[in-house]
């Protein structure tokens, strides 16, 4: 036996898990809601997804090539960002809109910070709010569900914000996605299937989604109507991008707190800001901004929610 042995520090054993695997499994968990989006809004939805994903991957590749860094487009993180951005867009947008959004997400939201793991804000949401600020008309023109043609249609959340009761949309419609909205946010059932997968495989924990949704539900029940304790909290939970945001965007590892305690604080903060924007702000939808604002607060939350060191 020759002594050409490998020497390294312990441990010499490693769990069979990688960043790549996690990214692709999270992408997989988003498939049901994408399929639901295509079913509900037609093939336009598929085009938006394809364009956003392709633009995200190409942007990442190009920037890594130009800056001579390791090409990591196969790790699935750019695909995930592109897909999440598409899920936050209406199905009937001009073809360049998802492309511009995805380029912005990857370039400004992610690569300028140094790439995966270095960004402060959720890249997909950075892209989304950029589009929202630049082309609000396209971003708020929704396709009527199940009709497959472009008809301007106000979202249920917009109606809720204006204080109107939801007359022709039942809770079941909201749950199944039979309502105008963004591609990936409408079908709660499909989102919950993906979320259940992530929770069962322990890729996400319940702390952020639960505290976020609970806070939003509670506050919209208390303050959501003209009198206290009369708000339509179920509609508030089921409409808009809350479920998509709470399970798939707020839980982004990179931009959320490290500890469970911190994650609860993060979720409550998201819920609070969402309700404030929805009920008293200028936009009907508050999820994107709420998550981005809490992203900024993450380092501070981490600082005050450190785990207790053994023996202290």
């Amino acid at each position, binding site marked *: 036996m020759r002594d050409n042995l490998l*020497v390294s520090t*312990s441990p010499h*054993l490693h*769990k069979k898990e*990688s960043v790549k695997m996690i990214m692709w499994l999270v992408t997989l968990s988003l498939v049901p809601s994408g399929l639901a989006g295509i079913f509900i809004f037609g093939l336009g939805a598929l085009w938006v997804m394809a364009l956003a994903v392709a633009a995200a991957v190409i942007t990442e590749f190009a920037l890594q090539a130009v800056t001579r860094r390791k090409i990591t487009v196969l790790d699935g993180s750019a695909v995930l960002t592109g897909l999440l951005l598409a899920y936050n867009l209406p199905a009937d947008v001009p073809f360049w809109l998802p492309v511009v959004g995805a380029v912005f997400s990857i370039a400004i939201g992610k690569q300028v910070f140094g790439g995966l793991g*270095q960004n402060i804000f959720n890249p997909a949401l950075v892209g989304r709010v950029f589009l929202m600020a630049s082309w609000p008309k396209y971003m708020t023109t929704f396709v009527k569900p199940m009709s497959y043609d472009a008809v301007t249609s106000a979202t249920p959340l917009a109606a809720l914000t204006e204080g109107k009761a939801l007359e022709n949309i039942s809770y079941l419609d909201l749950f199944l996605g039979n309502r105008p909205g963004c591609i990936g946010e409408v079908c709660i059932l499909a989102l919950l299937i993906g979320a259940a997968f992530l929770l069962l495989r322990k890729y996400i924990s319940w702390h952020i989604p639960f505290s976020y949704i609970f806070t939003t539900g509670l506050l919209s029940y208390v303050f959501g109507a003209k009198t206290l304790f009369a708000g339509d909290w179920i509609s508030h939970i089921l409409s808009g991008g809350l479920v998509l945001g709470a399970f798939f965007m707020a839980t982004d590892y990179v931009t959320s707190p*490290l500890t469970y305690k911190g994650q609860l604080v993060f979720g409550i903060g998201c819920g609070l800001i969402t309700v404030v924007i929805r009920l008293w702000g200028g936009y009907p939808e508050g999820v994107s901004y709420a998550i981005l604002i809490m992203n900024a607060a993450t380092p501070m939350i981490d600082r005050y929610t450190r785990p207790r*060191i053994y*023996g202290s």
Partner: protein
Amino acid sequence: MVRLEDNKFYTEAKPLEALPLPAKVYIPLSQHLGKPCLSLVKAGDSVSLGQKIGSVEAHVYSPVHASVSGRVKAIVDWPHPVLGRAKAVVIEADDSCGPQKMDYLPREDIGELTAENIKNIIFDSGIVGMGGASFPAHIKLNPPKQVEVLIINGAECEPYLTADYRLMLEKTQEIIKGIELVVKCLGIKKVFIAIEDNKPEAIKAFRCFNYNICVLSSAYPQGGEKQLIKSVLNKEVPRGKLPFDLGVVVHNVATVFAIYQSVYLNKPLFERVVTVTGSILEKPKNLLVRIGTPIKELIAFCSPLKEEPAKIINGGPMMGIAQYSTDAPVIKSTNGILLLSKKEAAPLPEEYCIRCGACVRECPAGLLPCMINLASERSIWQEAISYGALDCIECGVCSYVCPANRRLVQSIKRAKLEAVR
């Protein structure tokens, strides 16, 4: 804490077996925490089995003994499984110098021995903590305060290793006698024998005796001293303090067995049980090995090999030390020799931290390994310490769970070293 694939199936059913006497042993003069010994012999001397060959004037040290009868060839600088290189006494076995097996003369006056007598025997026998830390045992038997609780560590939470397990099965009576000796030394009021639930046979073996058995869940690092105290007593050792401060002392089963042998059989610590294991060995075994035997002899005894080993580890896969040479000998703290194949040892590419928080959740010491890592990489040592670097027990759980394969333990060790400067 994490549940690991324990891989104990390779050797858990293999009874203890004595490795044939090696032709030469290389006995390091430093096999303990504390001051290294000085050689009491010189080249050409004839030594007999169990003769004291190394000692030093110091408070924290443990003497070393000849593990064969034979002639001292030289005192050389030799590969050491933990220290890299260190002074070792080379002895060539020679039957004309004395018997190669101890002619045990069981002591008859055990009942009459005072606590002081027992402590002296244990000290003279060169017994150290055999679970890995190599802390001289007699120091743990001379606590500055009254100790009331003794925990016997039979957790053996490192994957692959079964040395303690086999000892618990085959030497149950002897371990119990060793426990009685420690109880007598320290005036212990309560004893707990802590064993993980993946060793039901060992638990059964100890059930026949009148001691508290504490069945632990099989999670790593359950056998770490501080984690064990928490699991058994639900108490934490305060930061910067020792188990003594809680009135607790922890001894490993192998140490207690060595204590039994020293007091009952007059036998100094010159051999121990070593698990030789790994997927590439045809005949993995639990061997009774003389201290100072080069590990290549252990491997040869368990061969043939299915393929060349890419990595050889002294100890278990989580905290063991990768060896650069198979000339390195077995020392008092060697509980296993693990061979990894090329595939098993392949280094994984290090990626950026994605802040998944797995290291933070699993850290048994309550640290932020990923943050220490970032600070350490930027040489901001003060910040690394603020995240708890100095409280790290180096169990390896953080590196094990990290999906980005970051060298967390390595960078924390670095931060610790820099902090001392």
